[in-house]
C-alpha cells in the first residue's frame, strides 16, 4: 500500500437503482481505476451523463460501488464503520450552493461540520475563523447566506468542508451555476488551497479552461476513463475529446485553427498566457 495515495478506485463498477424493478439501468461507472495522490490537483472532465458526478459520490462513501473497491487512505468505503473517518478525509462540494448551506448565518454554517464531529467549542471557533480567512469570507461571517453572491456562497460551502480538516476536497461542478465573476473567485481559491495549504483537489467540471489548471486530467465518457494525463497530453488528443463531446480550451482551439490556416504556432498552447507568448513570438519573428 502506497502511503502517498489518498483515494484509490479499484475496478469500480456502479449502477443506479431504477424506480422500476424490472428494468436494470446500464452501468454508470465501468471498470474505473484511478489513484489520487496527496497534494495533487486533478480535473475530471466529461460530458453530461459521463458518470463524473458519480465519482464524487463514490469518493466519500455517499454511495458504494456495486463491485470493486474505493479506498480512502486505505479504508474501504463499503465498510460503514469507516464512514465518518472517510468523510473527515474527503469532503465533497456540490454544484448548487443554495442546497448545501444549512444554517442561517455564515459562521454557523461553517461550524456545522465540526459541530457534528463533536469538536470542543474553542477549537470550532478557531477552525471556523481559519477556514473563513482561507476562503476570504471572514468579513462576511455574520451575513445571511441568501444575501451572498453565488461565488461567495460556494466559498462558504468550501470553508464548511475545510473546517472539518479534510485532506482532500472533491468539487462536483462547483462553478456550473455561477456567473463568470463567481467562477473566477472559486477557481482562484481552489488553486490557493492546493498550492498554499497542500490540500488535494479533485475538480469535476466540463469547463476546459478550469481543467487546464490541473496537474492531471481524466476524461470520462459513458462511465469509462478514456484519457488520462497532463493537460498538454490530454489536449493534444483532439479526437478523443471530440468523441467525449468536449472541445478544446478557448486558447488551444484558437491556436489550432490558426495552425490550420498555416500560422506556425508551437504545440501545447492551453491558457490565454500561453497564447499571448506564442503569438507575440510569432509576430516578432
Amino acid at each position, binding site marked *: 500500500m502506497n502511503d502517498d495515495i489518498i483515494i484509490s478506485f479499484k475496478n469500480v463498477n456502479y449502477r443506479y437503482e431504477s424506480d422500476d424493478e424490472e428494468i436494470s439501468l446500464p452501468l454508470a461507472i465501468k471498470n474505473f481505476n484511478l489513484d489520487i495522490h496527496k497534494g495533487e490537483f486533478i480535473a475530471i472532465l466529461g460530458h453530461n451523463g459521463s458518470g463524473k458526478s458519480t465519482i464524487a459520490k463514490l469518493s466519500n462513501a455517499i454511495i458504494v460501488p456495486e463491485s470493486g473497491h474505493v479506498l480512502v487512505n486505505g479504508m474501504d468505503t463499503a465498510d460503514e464503520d469507516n464512514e*465518518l473517518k472517510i468523510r473527515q478525509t474527503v469532503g465533497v462540494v456540490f454544484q448548487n450552493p443554495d442546497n448545501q448551506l444549512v*444554517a442561517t448565518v455564515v459562521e454557523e454554517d461553517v461550524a456545522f461540520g465540526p459541530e457534528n464531529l463533536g469538536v470542543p467549542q474553542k477549537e470550532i471557533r478557531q477552525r471556523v475563523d481559519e477556514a473563513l480567512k482561507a476562503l476570504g469570507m471572514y468579513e462576511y461571517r455574520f451575513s445571511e447566506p441568501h444575501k451572498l453572491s453565488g461565488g461567495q456562497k460556494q466559498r462558504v460551502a468550501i470553508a464548511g468542508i475545510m473546517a472539518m480538516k479534510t485532506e482532500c476536497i472533491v468539487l462536483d461542478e462547483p462553478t456550473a451555476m455561477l456567473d463568470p465573476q463567481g467562477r473566477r473567485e472559486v477557481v482562484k481559491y481552489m488553486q490557493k488551497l492546493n498550492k498554499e495549504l497542500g490540500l488535494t483537489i479533485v475538480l469535476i467540471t466540463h469547463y476546459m479552461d478550469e481543467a487546464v489548471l490541473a496537474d492531471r486530467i481524466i476524461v470520462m465518457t459513458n462511465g469509462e476513463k478514456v484519457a488520462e494525463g497532463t493537460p498538454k497530453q490530454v489536449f493534444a488528443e483532439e479526437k478523443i475529446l471530440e468523441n467525449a463531446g468536449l472541445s478544446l480550451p478557448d486558447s488551444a482551439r484558437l491556436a489550432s485553427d490558426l495552425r490550420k490556416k498555416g500560422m506556425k504556432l508551437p504545440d501545447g498552447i492551453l491558457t490565454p498566457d500561453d497564447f499571448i507568448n506564442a503569438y507575440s513570438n510569432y509576430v516578432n519573428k
Partner: protein
Amino acid sequence: MLRDATIGQFFPGDSYIHKMDPRAKLVFSFGAIIAIFVCKTFESLAVVTLAAILCVFVSKIPFKTIFKGLKAVIFVIIITAVIQLFYVKTGETLVEFWKIKITTGGLSNSIFICVRIIVLILYSSLLTYTTSPTSLTDGMERLFSPLKIIHVPVGTLAMMMTIALRFIPTLNDEIGKIMNAQKARGADLGNGSVINRAKALIPIFVPLFVNSFRRAYELAFAMECRCYHGGEGRTRLKIMTLSWRDYISFTVLAVLYAGIIILNHFFTHVI
C-alpha cells in the same frame, strides 16, 4: 398581504431584551402568557398589561410596529368580542331588541377577552421581534434537552426548524421566479374569482414542491458529507450562559404572578 404582517419578524437591536438569553426570553414569554390566563379580575389583567407595555418600552421596538402586528389579527379580536357580547347573559340587561340581549356581564367579558388576546400577541410578538430565529431554535433546543431522557429527538427537531428557517428566503425567491416564468407563458395570476385565483396557484406550487424535494435530496447529501449523523454527540459553536439580565427577568415574572394571585383574591372575578 403577507408582507405587511410583522408577526414573527426579527428586528435587530441592542436593548436589554435583545441581549437576554433566548432561553430566559422563552421562559419569560410563556410564563407571562400563562399569567394572562391566570388573571380573573380587571385589576390583575391591568398589571399584566402594564408589564407588557413596559417590556415594549424596554425593547425599544416602536409601538407602530407592534400595532402593525396587531392589525393582522384584528378580525379574530372583533369576532371574539362580538360572540362574547351576545352569548354571555349575566348581569343587568343594557340593550334588548328582537332576540338579541346585551348585558353588563357580556360587555365586561368581551372587553376582558379582547385585552387578553391583545396582551397575548404583545408578549409572543415581542419574543420574535427581539430574538433571531437561529437563537430562538437554539434556545428551544437547550430548553427542551431534558426531554431526551424520554427519547424525544430534540436535536433533530431543532435541526429541522433551522433548515426550515434557512430555506424560507430561498423558496421565496423561487416562488418569484416560478411566477414570472408562468406569467411569461401567459398565466393569469391574481385575477378573477377566488376559485380562479386558487386554480392559478397550482402551476406555481407544483414546480415549487418538485424543486423542494430535489433540494431536500441534495441537502441530505451535503449534510452527510459534513458528517451529520443525528443530534447525538454534537457540540456547538456558541455556548449560552445566563446573565444577571435573565435572573432579573425571572424575578419580574415571579413578582407578576404574586401580584396576580393577590389581586385575584381581593377583587371581583370577571370570568
